[in-house]
């Protein structure tokens, strides 16, 4: 009987979030997605709140060599118990066609102000596409603590266009007028 109840809850959760598809901001959040507690409020039944829910963290225009731009998002355990919070990148695309991959050149760092740690640093395209615990530990490794009920983390996502040393043979000129686009999806793990 107890197992049946757990399964019922898990089934409901899995149907909506086990494979969270990239969210389309224009998409109606009705239907099956309504099963997912994604509201930014901390109302009853919601496990995570996201200060920018449904909105981008990064909207960077005109990035140029040596320049960094940042965006902040605050994620909170809005549930009633401790949770493990994960994030993953999805839907990464870059362009225009035939141009070098900007996501391979620009660097992304994620800084957690709550823990005062840089929890990710690497090429933008290397941000995990599998659920990943932003705690500073190597991707996919154990050892990250859960978030206590009500625990809030303020993440700063920073993209940087690395300049090249003077005299370098690397040609970054072709990155002018290129772009990338992706989604960050947060979830809790049981």
């Amino acid at each position, binding site marked *: 009987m107890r197992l049946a109840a757990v*399964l019922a809850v*898990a089934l409901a*959760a*899995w149907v909506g*979030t*086990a494979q*969270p598809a990239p969210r*389309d*901001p224009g998409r109606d959040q009705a239907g099956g997605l309504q099963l*997912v507690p994604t509201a*930014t409020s901390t109302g009853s039944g*919601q*496990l*995570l709140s*996201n200060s920018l*829910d*449904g*909105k*981008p*963290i*990064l*909207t*960077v*225009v*005109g990035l*140029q*060599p040596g320049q960094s731009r940042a965006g902040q*998002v605050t*994620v909170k355990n809005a*549930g009633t118990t401790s949770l*493990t919070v*994960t994030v993953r990148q999805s839907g990464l695309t870059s362009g225009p066609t035939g141009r070098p991959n900007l996501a391979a050149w*620009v660097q992304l760092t994620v800084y957690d102000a709550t823990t005062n740690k840089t929890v990710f640093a690497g090429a933008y395209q290397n941000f995990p596409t599998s*659920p990943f*615990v932003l705690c500073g530990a190597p991707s*996919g490794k154990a050892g*990250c603590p859960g978030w206590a009920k009500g625990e809030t983390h303020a993440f700063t996502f920073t*993209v940087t*266009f690395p*300049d*090249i040393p003077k005299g*370098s043979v690397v*040609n*970054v000129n072709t*990155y*002018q*007028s*290129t*772009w*990338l*686009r*992706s*989604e*960050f*999806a*947060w*979830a*809790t*793990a*049981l």
Partner: protein
Amino acid sequence: MKLTSRASILVAAFTAAILVPAIAYGAFTAGTSNPGNTVTTGVLKAPGALTATAHLPDNATNTGNVTLTWNDGVTGSGTLDPAGYVAERQTAGSSSWQSVATPTYGSACNAGHVCTVTDTSAAFNTTYSYRVRSTTGGWTAGPANVRLAASIAPTAAEDRELPIDALASVAYSASGLIAVGQNGRILVCAGTCTGTGAWQMAASPTSNDLNRVVFDGSGSGRAWAAGAGGTVLTCASGCTSASATWTGVNAGTSAELYGIAANTGYVAVVGASRTMRYTTDANYTTWSSGTISAGTATTTLYGITAKSAKNVVVVGSRGTGTTGVIAACSVSGNGVCGSTAFAAVTYAGGSSAPTADMRDVSYVSGGGDNAYAVGAGGNVYVSTSLTSGYTKKTTGSTSDLYAVAAVSQNAAAAVGAPASGGSSVFLRCTANCASTGTWAGGADTGTTSSLSGLAGSAGSYWAAGSGGTIRYFNGAAWTGQSPATTAVNPSVLQATDGNQYALATASALTSSCTAPALVATATVPARSSSAVTSPAVKVTVGYNFAGGTNASQVALSTDNGSTWSAAALTGNVTASTAKTVDFTGTVPASDSAQQILLCVQGTGGGGHLNIDMVHVDVEE
């Protein structure tokens, strides 16, 4: 049924999650997302069309400045202002670009989006290409175009012959000589001026004919000139230098002036219709009319010489009378000559007043106040007391004498018109010239040009006359000296070094290259590819006028001077301001270097033209 299958799978997954929860979060309970993260890079503004303008050279370093100008961004080329620019140049024939300046955006561009940078190390006689790229970090944009800045100085130049202006008078001082003549021309020859001489054109503030030049008798070095239209010029110092400053003095007359004398604060001029004006004003601003009682109202006074303000002699034509004028003034009390009237001199030794026009008179001290007066028909009158007791000398010549030079009691000479079928007359006296000495024909002047001016020193003489003739007598023979119309060495054009080009003051500027003009040759590089069909050429000429204000123009010929393009005309150019004038046209496309001719002309205020630089900028 399907639900059953999915539930089975879920059970398996859930079980795994429980077992290794930190390794695989295979089941998720709640989520939120941040879609639409975008990163877009900028596009650097490319520099706008480049122009390259050369400036006057630096005398000290003999380098030129080339200023590059462009707009900070081509519309639509990008959105990002660059951090800076890289200005590069390429020597013709080289395949590599050399950075000459890397200004920041802020230092290169003004609020109007106009950016400039100067290459201060451009060498003369060197062809460069210039380009400018914008930069931000490792990004670059541009260049919009490449400008060829070719041959900052021309590779060759020639002087298009100047019109020959008659010279009317020449004066000697220990520092050199000055000759003046038609069209306000002033020539100077500094130093000893022997041999072929080194005559240069000095700036003249007038285009009126100058008839007479003298140095102040005080030995101050000040020089004076007089001419048509009541023109009186003076130069305070350094007057035998091409850079001397001559200024006009208002003597209060518009009469043509033929003679001028200056001695220790006294300046007097004489001319047509018995005009005589004099001043003792230290600033030469207040002039008075003098009285000549000799001659007639139509007498032209051609010469005047002054021992002082109180002892002056004038000579002139017969007018409507029968005798040429030799008149003197000798003041013993107050007053100066002019306020005290001039009266005909007395004659001695059985001589009587000349029956011909008298053209010149000269005074020199030593063994008496020796004076020599000459005139038409070979007339030579001498006196040892300046203002009286004139004696006619027998010369054996009937040629008209126009000028006399008094070097000493034992050295004097006269020159004038050519004898019938022969050279111009030269009478010379080598001893006791104002008394018992003999005036006789001297060495052959070697010219048939009428000689109107004569100056002397020791046994040497310089004569100037029609056709711009300048002759030098070294004590034994006459030789020609070169007026300032010699060919131009290209190196002349590489720096402002005092070499100058005389301009006819009344020439009209036309679309053809007519004398007087400087014709310079510059090289246009071969086109870079056969796709270039009509290279545009922009020629910049740096120059200034010395003396007066002038209009000027530059014309271009791409067919070796057969035809000239429409002139690029510029307005008045002040004497003291170096100026550049641009000419823009096209040249035939050529796979080899080609030469173009540049014609620089000027007119207006007289003086002369200094060419400092010729710069050719070719855009393909």
